[in-house]
């Protein structure tokens, strides 16, 4: 797997990975805010967010009719749509693209669900490797508490209920998340994850994130030529009109 830099894309892709409740979404959001304020061309893309595929995914989830195979394929479809329609053109145009979850989410989750690793990886092999992947590693208990405190009811697939790990959604969720964490850890080295201590407080983590990004990526290369969008054009003044008339003569 080659990175976008190795493939000579002018843009760079930064991905965050981690369990639900690891705080990765907060971190990448704050990173985005900073880059925007710095006048950098930045785009944010979230897992499972392609408009076209979304309705099928949510239907499948609601009716609980997804199998490990269709679950994997429908997420691959969603990813491919965002990848081909947004990510690649933006990276060609020199953007910094931020991804909340990338193919590694599929590698971890789908394999936990029983899909063959080679099959899943093969399906995603059109995707290049991020230039930086930050893996937010919190203690399993910490992640679980964050999720379980915030949301009283766990969703069927989120809790891994399709795997028959336990009849109790909370118990199932714990086992499922634990297995996903194992998968993440197993691929961490292979894909050059930078492991972030997600047990730290949010501000401290963000300082580290920003430092890491500015060390890895020469940010000034990604600045917009005009820092702000141009103000709406004003109606022509009297002088302008006169000038135009002069020219037309």
């Amino acid at each position, binding site marked *: 797997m080659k990175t976008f830099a190795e493939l000579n894309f002018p843009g760079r892709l930064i991905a965050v990975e981690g369990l639900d409740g690891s705080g990765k979404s907060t971190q990448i959001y704050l990173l985005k805010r900073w880059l925007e304020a710095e006048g950098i061309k930045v785009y944010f893309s979230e897992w499972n967010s392609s408009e*076209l*595929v979304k*309705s*099928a995914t949510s*239907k*499948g989830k609601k009716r609980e*009719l*997804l*199998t*490990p*195979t*269709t679950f994997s*394929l*429908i997420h*691959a*479809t969603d990813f*491919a*749509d965002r*990848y*081909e*329609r947004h990510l690649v053109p933006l990276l060609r145009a020199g953007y910094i693209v931020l991804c909340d979850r990338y193919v590694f989410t599929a590698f971890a989750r789908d394999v936990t*669900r*029983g*899909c*063959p690793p*080679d*099959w899943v990886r*093969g*399906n995603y*092999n*059109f995707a290049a490797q991020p230039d930086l992947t930050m893996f937010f590693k919190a203690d399993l208990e910490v992640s679980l508490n964050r999720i379980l405190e915030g949301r009283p009811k766990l969703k069927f697939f989120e809790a891994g209920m399709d795997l028959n790990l336990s009849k109790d959604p909370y118990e199932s969720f714990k086992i499922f998340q634990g297995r996903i964490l194992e998968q993440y850890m197993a691929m961490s080295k292979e894909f050059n994850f930078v492991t972030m201590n997600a047990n730290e407080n949010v501000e401290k983590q963000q300082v580290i994130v920003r430092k890491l990004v500015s060390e890895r990526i020469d940010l000034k290369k990604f600045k917009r030529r005009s820092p702000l969008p141009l103000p709406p054009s004003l109606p022509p003044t009297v002088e302008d009109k006169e000038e135009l008339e002069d020219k037309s003569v």
Partner: protein
Amino acid sequence: MKNFDLKNGRRFYGHGIPHIKCEQLTGKLIVVEGADGSGRSTQIIRLVDWLETNGHPTVQVGLKRSSLVSAELDKAQQGNVLSRTTLALFYATDFADQLENIMIPALKAGFIVLADRYIYTLMARDMVRGMDEKWLKNLYGIAPEPDAVFYLSVEPEELVQRNLSKTATLDYWESGMDLGLSRNLFESFLDYQTKMQSTFHKLQKTYGFDIVDANRSTDAVTKELRKKIGALLEGK
């Protein structure tokens, strides 16, 4: 190989489906492939009629018929907004949904499953559009190998005639208009169908399906199919 059952000789083309073992699939899977206008649907109706009359339970599947994504897939195609990889994966999702929810249960129950097109059409369409064959083979490694595959081969010139007499026009996708081969629908159709045919012949070498000359009359084709399927069911 764990996905190979010696007794009934069935296997998956690749990794297969998690938790499904081939020896459970005791029914028969019969695939009919061919372009629009090759007589596929007519032949399948006739086969179902014949098989059921002879006491065989049947189930039919086809492309873009899954409850999961068929509506979304239709919508996407109408706007022609999806890129190649996305469309390929969308079709694979549709296929997998029918495979797991209809075909596999039916095959486990000993039914005869008649598939109106299978992974070969999906692969051929994508190969004509320049997608990587290896990637496609991995993707469709979820598919069980059928007991028989009949490719109804019809000359492109004859397909044009049949399609025009049926609908007075040529289908956008069946003409490969998205490929920009020609702005002329008629030319594009001929060009695209010729490409599809040569891709099918290429796939035939790997998958060894039966090429049936469907330039002939409907009855002649039916007769040949019955003969071959009859032999299959008798275990010859």
